[in-house]
């Protein structure tokens, strides 16, 4: 079975600074990977996903993530954070089996200071 670790519970960055949120997964084969964002009191919105091919994937709102098989990681990055990026971010991993459930990390809360 697959698992996901998001080692940082909280991260604070200054507006305009770069951001990297860490995600490590455990799965015996090539997984497919997602990042979601959740604003307070809202549902989760898909930022980006990786299935195969180019290991650097672009998402919405200026986010990107890089799949590194050797490190079992799928870190989320943004070159310049905006105050509106303050939210909780979830990494999720799935297996290449139709109907397989996604497994979510515990989430990272991003705070942006002006």
């Amino acid at each position, binding site marked *: 079975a697959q698992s996901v670790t998001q080692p940082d519970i909280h991260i604070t960055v200054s507006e305009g600074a770069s951001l990297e949120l860490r995600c490590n997964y455990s799965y015996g084969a090539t997984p*497919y990977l*997602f990042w*979601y964002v959740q604003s307070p*009191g*809202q*549902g*989760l*919105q*898909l930022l980006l*996903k990786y*299935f195969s091919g180019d290991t650097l994937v672009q998402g919405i709102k200026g986010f990107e993530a890089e799949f590194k098989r050797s490190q079992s990681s799928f870190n989320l990055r943004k070159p310049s954070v905006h105050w509106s990026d303050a939210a909780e971010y*979830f990494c*999720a991993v*799935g297996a*290449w089996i*139709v*109907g*397989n*459930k*996604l497994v*979510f*990390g*515990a*989430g990272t809360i991003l705070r942006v200071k002006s």
Partner: protein
Amino acid sequence: SQTIHQWPATLVQPVGSPLSLECTVEGTSNPNLYWYRQAAGRGLQLLFYSVGIGQISSEVPQNLSASRPQDRQFILSSKKLLLSDSGFYLCASRGQTLGGYTFGSGTRLTVV
């Protein structure tokens, strides 16, 4: 693309009262459906999932139950609410392809 409707958005219920939360899906047929709960600072906990009408799998023992009376309808219920049932409940859907979930906007349940 899929759209998920969840209601109500907020609910305050007394301990011991019944519960019914509804989720309906548009834009897909025969989806896999999921109920998640978020307690404060606890991440996403999968409660139930369904791969078809009348098919429910429970992930954790609890005071809640789920039903799927129609292809695109998923209901979360309780006969008697406990204080520990408070939380933010999310419904999610995935079509019959390998892909991510689409989430509803959630229901904030407070049991008092």
